[in-house]
């Protein structure tokens, strides 16, 4: 007898350790999608009961109550109640509470348990409780709540077997009379949460010292921001320096593959498509995987340690001065990796005007797709010298490009909040989670997902675009004595565009690279690589590093202008598509597209003329 797999949902307060438990129960077998009609991420994975029966586990957004104060919380309520479109009502719930913060977490737990659905309570993060000298009595808690209580340490995979077994048991038993009163207000729940917590705590010591000590430094009015900026600076230096050996190795692999194809296959169009199109194009993008992984590593570690919320706190004042809040900091920081998850992360911003402003400026944060462009241009034009202990000039220029994006974003936010997204000043209320040691496993799962998404992009969009571009560049074939690029369709298209971008210092090759870069910014690099590979008939020259070719062909003002263009230009159709989905219409994505192109044009032009005037 077979039936549809059971659906189990994880619910609980933010910072209860739900995601760690989700990772521990499902491993890397996770699927991330969106709930239909809303823009809240749906995280689902597969867990297996002891009987071998598989079940679908969904990780619901952290909530304080079923009375939602954000779109995330509304989804949690709707899924649990069975009102969420496209989502079966869960067969059982796992309420996750942080053992260290019982009197707070038991408030929402009571609300969940009072539904009378099959429910198990996971008393999580017991290791941290022990560290803080907290001794708990789960049996007492079980008695006052009327549902099974399982002690878990998600990170050490402790209590997982017991939890799974208990979930299987309550699922079989089905719904029951609620074990807790149903019509109670929040004040009454608070009173009983406190009583329950008191009854379950056998002994406790005073507050956590480590946590306090760290906050004293990290939230210090002026040491805190200094630490934050130092940290961000290290991140960007690391992205550039640490990734180099890995990127070189990947480059070597691509070059070896290209050589192997050349020696083993007869010369012809197909071979050219593989070496000049596929390997030159996709290969030159894939080599940036190490940098993307390093950037995401820092973002994930900052999230996992609890530092990200502190960063939001520290940034709140600055964000408030342009009409935003510290909450916008997290989406904007994610946008440094990619604007798409960044724009999706704006869902946690409660104020709609605030959220819209954040969406509109998210593309100004330097995403990882710009890194390939920046990296190639910087490596080709900026000498690799040091300007101070541990500070390389190349890293400094990269840092300046990031700062340009941030300053631009702040100015735009300032203007937007006083014009199109005018409204009441937004607020900022946020729980600062306890500090935690990041777990290698959770970071690894996060990195795997990000890396996979990037490679899938390289394998689909970028692959298609580079092949199409190669075709446009290779046909019609040049007459003898004629330059192939000039003869091609792409060359003709670029001629038109070149007229428009000529005043800002762009040559025809640069104009040409902007066309496919609309699909994904990093394609600009592969497009340049493809262009220069096609232009040369000599195999050795094809193999010559792109950077050297660029340094020979472009002047420094041209290169700087190209960099300035990429700081602002909305060269990413996927971002526009996501913005359309998140704002429910074409109006805002079009506003975004227009203002970003205008800014890019002005910035690139100003850079070119200033650099030329300065005699660079």
């Amino acid at each position, binding site marked *: 007898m077979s039936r549809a797999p059971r659906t189990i949902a994880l619910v609980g307060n933010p910072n209860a350790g739900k995601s760690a438990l989700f990772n521990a129960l499902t491993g890397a077998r996770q699927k991330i999608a969106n709930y239909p009609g809303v823009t809240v991420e749906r995280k689902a994975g597969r867990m297996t009961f002891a009987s071998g029966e598989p079940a679908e586990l969904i990780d619901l957004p952290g909530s304080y109550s079923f009375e939602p104060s954000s779109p995330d919380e509304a989804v949690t309520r709707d899924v649990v109640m069975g009102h969420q479109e496209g989502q079966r009502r869960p067969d059982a719930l796992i309420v996750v509470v942080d053992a260290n913060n019982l*009197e707070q977490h038991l408030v929402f737990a009571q609300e969940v348990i009072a539904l009378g659905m099959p429910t198990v309570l996971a008393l999580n993060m017991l290791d941290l409780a022990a560290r803080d000298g907290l001794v708990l009595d789960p049996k007492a808690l079980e008695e006052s709540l009327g549902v099974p209580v399982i002690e878990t340490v998600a990170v050490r995979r402790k209590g997982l077997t017991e939890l799974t077994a208990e979930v299987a048991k309550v699922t079989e038993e089905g719904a029951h009379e609620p074990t807790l009163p149903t019509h109670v207000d929040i004040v009454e729940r608070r009173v009983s949460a*406190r009583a329950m917590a008191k009854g379950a705590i056998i002994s406790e010591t005073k507050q*956590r010292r480590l946590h306090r000590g760290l906050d004293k430094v990290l939230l210090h*009015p002026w040491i805190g921001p200094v630490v934050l900026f130092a940290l961000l600076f290290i991140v960007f230096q690391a992205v550039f320096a640490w990734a180099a050996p890995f990127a070189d190795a990947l480059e070597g692999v691509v070059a070896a593959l290209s050589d192997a194809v050349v020696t083993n296959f007869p010369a012809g169009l197909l071979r050219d498509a593989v070496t000049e199109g596929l390997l030159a194009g996709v290969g030159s993008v894939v080599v940036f995987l190490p940098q993307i992984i390093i950037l995401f590593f820092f973002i994930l570690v900052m999230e996992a340690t609890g530092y990200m919320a502190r960063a939001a*706190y520290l940034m*709140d*004042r600055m964000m408030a001065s342009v009409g935003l809040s510290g909450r916008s900091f997290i989406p904007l920081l994610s946008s440094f990796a990619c604007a798409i998850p960044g724009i999706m992360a704006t869902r946690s911003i409660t*104020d709609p005007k605030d959220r819209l402003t954040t969406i509109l400026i998210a593309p100004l944060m330097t995403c990882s797709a710009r890194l390939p462009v920046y990296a190639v241009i910087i490596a080709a034009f900026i000498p690799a010298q040091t300007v101070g202990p541990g500070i390389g000039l190349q890293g400094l220029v990269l840092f300046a490009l990031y700062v340009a994006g941030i300053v631009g974003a702040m100015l735009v936010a300032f203007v937007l909040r006083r014009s199109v997204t005018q409204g009441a000043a937004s607020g*900022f209320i946020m729980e600062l989670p306890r500090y935690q040691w990041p777990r290698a496993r959770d970071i690894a799962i996060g990195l795997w997902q990000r890396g996979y998404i990037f490679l899938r992009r390289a394998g689909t969009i970028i692959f298609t675009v580079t092949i199409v571009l190669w075709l446009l560049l290779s046909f019609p074939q040049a007459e003898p004595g004629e330059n192939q690029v000039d003869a091609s369709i792409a060359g003709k298209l670029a001629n038109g565009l070149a007229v428009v971008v000529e005043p800002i210092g762009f040559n025809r090759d640069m104009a040409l690279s902007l066309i496919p870069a609309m699909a994904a910014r990093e394609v600009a690099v592969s497009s340049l690589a493809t262009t220069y590979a096609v232009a040369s008939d000599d195999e050795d020259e094809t193999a010559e590093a792109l950077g050297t070719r660029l340094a020979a062909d472009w002047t420094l003002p041209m290169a700087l202008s190209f960099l300035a263009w990429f700081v602002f230009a909305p060269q990413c159709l996927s971002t526009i598509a996501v913005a359309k989905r998140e704002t429910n219409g074409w109006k805002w994505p079009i506003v975004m597209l227009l203002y970003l192109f205008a800014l890019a044009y002005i910035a690139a032009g100003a850079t070119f003329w200033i650099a030329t005037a300065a005699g660079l």
Partner: protein
Amino acid sequence: MTAHAEMSLADRPLGNAVRVVAVDWAVLDEGEARRLRALGIDSGAVLKIAHRGIFSGRDPIAIEIGRMTVALRRAHALAITVVDAPDEGVHPSGHTASEYAK
């Protein structure tokens, strides 16, 4: 009587425990009011300002309540009326009347 004078949370110095005696919910955004209540910031809560920003208005403010640290803005703190509660440990609202008496 000065020790029991009511004042706004925004005007309190760092470090002293204070009890919330009233919150002017009307001046707060509905969603924010809900969020504050959900975090246990309501009449009866005892809390402590742990950190403040450096610039104008020393905004934002981080408070300790129960085992949590919560960041909020000066605008919210202005709506929260408190009295000194020097002998109490910080905790969210929800204490019973008998506990207040102590």
